[in-house]
């Protein structure tokens, strides 16, 4: 299977670690992503139900505004686009290869599971107060107890459900 050219993951991971260091040094901010989804969700609610926004404590705490992390999340999309284009690995794809092998080419089926998965993932990540970036990278690198509990829980939950949906799957 053609994967597109990539870099050694140790190199790419190490360089991204340097980005983390510089970010903390220059701006005082540690990488994270999931709070931005709360802020963006608040922006959507602001359009359709503005009075509700002031009633919900969570949206008051995480006000719908564009902050440092919001820009990081937008930047990730731009950076990924630039990297994909320069390595010739940009590919418009509606159904991932591994998914297609197991569940077929239906876009609707993939969309439904991805949507439900997204709801569960973000609900869980806010309950945990951080995602694989905020807890898994930033928490772990600071030796936070919470980061290591989260990292283990992320993988335990994920491995169990991946086993349920893909089976033992020793065949390709």
């Amino acid at each position, binding site marked *: 299977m053609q994967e597109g050219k*990539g870099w050694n993951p140790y190199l790419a991971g190490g360089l991204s670690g340097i980005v983390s260091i510089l970010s903390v040094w220059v701006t005082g901010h540690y990488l994270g992503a999931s709070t931005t989804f709360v802020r963006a969700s608040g922006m959507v609610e602001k359009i359709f139900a503005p009075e509700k926004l002031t009633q919900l404590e969570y949206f008051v705490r995480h006000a719908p505004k564009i902050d440092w992390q919001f820009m990081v999340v937008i930047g990730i999309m731009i950076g990924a686009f630039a990297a994909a284009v320069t390595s010739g690995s940009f590919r418009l794809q509606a159904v991932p290869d591994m998914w297609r092998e197991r569940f077929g080419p239906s876009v609707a089926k993939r969309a439904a599971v991805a949507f439900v*998965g997204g709801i569960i993932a973000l609900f869980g990540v806010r309950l945990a107060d951080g995602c694989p970036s905020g807890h898994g990278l930033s928490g772990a690198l*600071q030796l936070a107890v919470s980061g290591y509990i989260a990292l283990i829980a992320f993988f335990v939950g994920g491995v*169990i459900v991946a086993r349920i949906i893909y089976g033992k799957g020793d065949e390709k």
Partner: protein
Amino acid sequence: MNILLAGLITGILFGFFLQKGRVLRYDKQLGALRLKDFIIVKFMLSHIIVAMIGVYLLYDLGLVKLSIKPAIVGGVALGGLLFGVGWALLGYCPGTSLGALGEGRWDALWGILGMLVGAGLYAEAYPFMKATVLTWGNFGKITIPQALGINHWLVIGLVVAAAAYLLFIIEKHEQKEPAA
């Protein structure tokens, strides 16, 4: 520097390396969760080791502050498990979903929409969570060195050794069974 511009530059660099490391893909994320493809583990551990050493050096020099999230065992463990369930279904996490979209894997869009709904639902559920799950086992903003009462460089040494050992096992395993 303008803080929003700094965020954008940080994100662009981070997204660039995530894509070059090939960790944005559903196949790689599920590959890790199916214990078949460890590219994400290699990327994450490299990031953690490099940044951990760098940040703690700067911390010892008094140039940076730590920003620790509280270890509320109920919230972090239950929320973390729940996130894992959603992660396995979606195949992207909050940060990588935007990156996946950037490299053309537009099934991430359904996940992003779902995550916006999930954020809204959590805002509704927050008062309940605050009164229940988020009160279970709160140990505060604590680090492993603080919990153990030992110097952080000792813990850093142990984490690096553990990560190196794990990566050694992974590399050995892959020599026997090359990833697809």
